[in-house]
């Protein structure tokens, strides 16, 4: 397990994109900071949530496509005691990277606030909490949302070998998922009580946390419900992805 995890980490740190992604994130955050109110910028870490998701989608899809290229997966699999170790280790690496990107987003936000868009971090903002607490909680919630997206990316990656197709499909889930889910829920029907638990609805977790009034009407779920839903779907997609990975013929 440790050797297998080391292999994943070794490949990950030698990927150029691993080091380019934080720079892209910083550029995006600087670019967006001129267009939104200072307090909203602080809460959403300069609206970095979507940018981080896209970076993670690209990274997650690449983690699998590089294995299918040249059939490197064969060596990786027989050198690992179990297929589960290969799949789980990739998930662990991307989870750690997710944490790092979110920590960097917080650091960049503090830096930008100190230099370009000053805010009072202790002033009370949403949920009767100080702005700084709002920011940390939004980050925590966004880590759950991004891991939900990653579990979907991993599952798609085990089905489709093409990196480009996986990235396109996953980004479609990120951007059109909310629209599809809200369209389904807009037609109030007897099935609404069930449809509101669809996985695409859970991708709205971060947005709902930041703007509850606007999004609760769409998702029809409370914050704890949507959080539990997202956590459950992370497990479901992880398990499905692993099962497909195990059954896949290389």
């Amino acid at each position, binding site marked *: 397990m440790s050797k297998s995890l080391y292999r994943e980490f070794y490949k990950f740190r*030698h990927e*150029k994109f691993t080091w380019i992604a934080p720079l892209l994130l910083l550029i995006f955050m600087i670019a967006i900071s001129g267009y939104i109110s200072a307090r909203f910028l602080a809460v959403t870490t300069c609206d970095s949530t979507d940018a981080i998701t896209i970076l993670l989608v690209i990274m997650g899809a690449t983690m699998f496509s590089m294995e299918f290229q*040249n*059939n*490197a997966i064969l*060596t990786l*699999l*027989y*050198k690992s005691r179990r297929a589960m170790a290969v799949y789980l280790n990739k998930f662990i690496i991307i989870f750690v990277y997710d944490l790092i990107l979110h920590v960097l987003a917080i650091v960049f936000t503090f830096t930008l606030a100190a230099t370009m868009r000053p805010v009072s971090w202790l002033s009370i903002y949403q949920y009767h909490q100080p702005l700084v607490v709002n920011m940390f909680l939004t980050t925590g919630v966004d880590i759950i949302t991004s891991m939900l997206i990653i579990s979907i990316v991993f599952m798609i990656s085990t089905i489709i070998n093409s990196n480009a197709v996986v990235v396109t499909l996953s980004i479609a889930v990120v951007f059109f998922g909310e629209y599809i889910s809200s369209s389904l829920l807009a037609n109030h029907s007897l099935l609404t009580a069930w449809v509101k638990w669809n996985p695409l609805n859970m991708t709205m977790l971060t947005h709902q946390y930041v703007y509850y009034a606007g999004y609760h009407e769409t998702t029809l779920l409370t914050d704890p419900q949507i959080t539990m839903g997202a956590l459950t779907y992370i497990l479901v997609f992880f398990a499905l992805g692993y099962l497909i990975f195990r059954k896949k013929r290389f």
Partner: protein
Amino acid sequence: MLQVNHINTFIGRKKIVKDVSFRVNPGSIVGLIGPNGAGKTTIMKTILGLTKFTGKISVENKSVTENDHGALTRVGALIEHPAIYPFLTGLENLKLYSLDEADMNHVVSLLGMTSYINNKSKDYSMGMKQKLGIAIALLNKPQLVILDEPMNGLDIEATILIRKIIKQYAAQGSAFLISSHVLGELQKVMTNVLLITEGKIIVDQPIDEFNRVSHQQFRLLTEDMPATEKLFRDNRIPITKTDNYLLIARDQSYPVQDILYSHHIRLLELSPQGLNFEQTIVSLLEQQRRQNHEK
């Protein structure tokens, strides 16, 4: 070392490997030979626990299953393509799997890769990539090395070098299971031959024995060759036609004399015909195909 007992491998509903059993002993170099689609790569993947199978596979008395590769700790393999990551250098690719840096450096120098091992592997030629794939398989002093078409893309010097290295490792106790379509090359290193067709093993013999006894044929000349040929076909005796003779298997030499005698066809010549390795393999595969067809 490696023990394969009655394995069957399926792809979808199709049985690709059919009740295959064999052993690979320490220090032996087993050549896995067969036509395209015979099941060679599938057997190799099955040994590495990469496909679903029934039967039993063990390495050093430890079982290999699809869900537990613990027995493969000291097994190296090159299957289909060299398993390399283009964004890593050759050395970084090796480091991924190496457990001993001194051994890794030894493998690099043995394969003559020192001058380019620190270059990105995406810039390697096909032969360089192949050597890197073989280097990965030879890491960590393996007890068993499985090589699928190892000579692919190698120039003559590299081919000779790899042949030498295989013999060197085998002399130190490593066992090899090698598949190759370049029979001439395989013949120069292998100690045992494993011939497979349509998922079944039809020959499993030490190479000396294979060359000496089993597959020698007899050439036959009679006073009426067209009638002889028809007679043999009617009696389902496998034959191969050459310019002037018919070739028959060694074990058919007595039955054919009886048949000819009973049909009053005079036998002019019946003598051993030495076949080279390739001809023997082709002839055996032809015989097997004919037998399968007749069934």
